[in-house]
């Protein structure tokens, strides 16, 4: 052993034995709340469930500029979009991410057009959807991150539609679970405990907790063999709907 590393005796004396009476820290001695006989306030809310403000979307800009080949129907059955161009001829790389971007919207007519436009394009896209998946992740993530009840419900339903819209789409989403699932993990237990009362959101399919459970199950069913372990990694309370 080298000389320099040998223990050197110093002049510092050994630590004294602890006295029986523990020393009270100074910060406790001068506790102002105690002095004023007030309750100590708890920590601030972290705000995990708080709604986040949204920036104006590209979808709104494009709609107002008249860039979309769609027309609004002013009839009593206002649940359809009239397309001015056949959907089969649309450039999915351009339009599908734009419509997904509009999922953050909460006001009419943007909200309606985005929701219905996505629905129509997914229903009739077929093999054109799969190559666009990477471009859809950021709009989906933004929509979920708004933590707005309405936006969450719409986005979850869209995700359920997306995984069944074409072959291999479910598998293609697995690498992006890290972006999509954190918000689902937060809201997974958002379920009203009304005892034996009626929770009307269940009838209207607006119960976020139930929708998340359905969505995760759809992901697992269509995501191939790696889906479950990846979901479990992001949402630890999720139990498989196929293995049990």
């Amino acid at each position, binding site marked *: 052993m080298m000389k320099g590393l040998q223990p050197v005796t110093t002049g510092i004396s050994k630590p004294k034995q602890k006295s029986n009476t523990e020393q009270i820290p100074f910060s406790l001695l001068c506790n102002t709340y105690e002095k004023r006989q007030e309750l100590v306030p708890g920590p601030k809310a972290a705000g995990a469930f708080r709604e986040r403000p949204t920036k104006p979307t590209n979808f709104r800009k494009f709609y107002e500029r008249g860039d979309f080949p769609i*027309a609004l129907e002013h009839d009593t059955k206002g649940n359809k979009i009239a397309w*001015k*161009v056949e959907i089969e001829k649309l450039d999915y790389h351009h339009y599908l991410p734009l419509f997904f971007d509009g999922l953050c919207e909460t006001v009419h007519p943007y909200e309606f057009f985005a929701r219905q436009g996505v629905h129509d394009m997914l229903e009739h896209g077929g093999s054109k959807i799969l190559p666009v998946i990477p471009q859809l992740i950021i709009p989906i993530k933004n929509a979920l991150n708004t933590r707005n009840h309405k936006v969450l419900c719409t986005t979850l339903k869209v995700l359920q539609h997306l995984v069944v819209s074409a072959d291999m789409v479910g598998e293609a989403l697995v690498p992006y679970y890290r972006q999509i699932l954190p918000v689902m993990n937060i809201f997974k237990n958002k379920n009203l405990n009304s005892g034996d009362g009626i929770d009307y959101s269940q009838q209207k399919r607006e119960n976020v907790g139930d929708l998340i459970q359905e969505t995760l199950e759809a992901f697992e069913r269509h995501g191939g063999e790696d889906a479950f372990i990846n979901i479990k990694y992001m949402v630890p309370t999720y139990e498989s709907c196929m293995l049990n």
Partner: protein
Amino acid sequence: MSSTSPQPKSMMRPTQWSEQVEEAYRFQLAGYRDELEYKKFQKTDNVDRWPHNGYVKKLTRRDGCFYYYNKTRECPDKEISKTKIYTY
């Protein structure tokens, strides 16, 4: 509508949903009486249909816009009695 198109003899309003009602609902949503009138107006012989169940998939409206329909039932309960089924 041209005067040569065949005129229906009678019309009935359904009370229950059926595939026939669904068919009529889809054409009437797009502004046509039924398949006959659609083919006559568009001067075409084929209607785009879903391959698995034969429901109407795509229709062209009178103004040239396109309506796209779902794979599954679209006619809501409240619209059943408003749908008209024509016989010739």
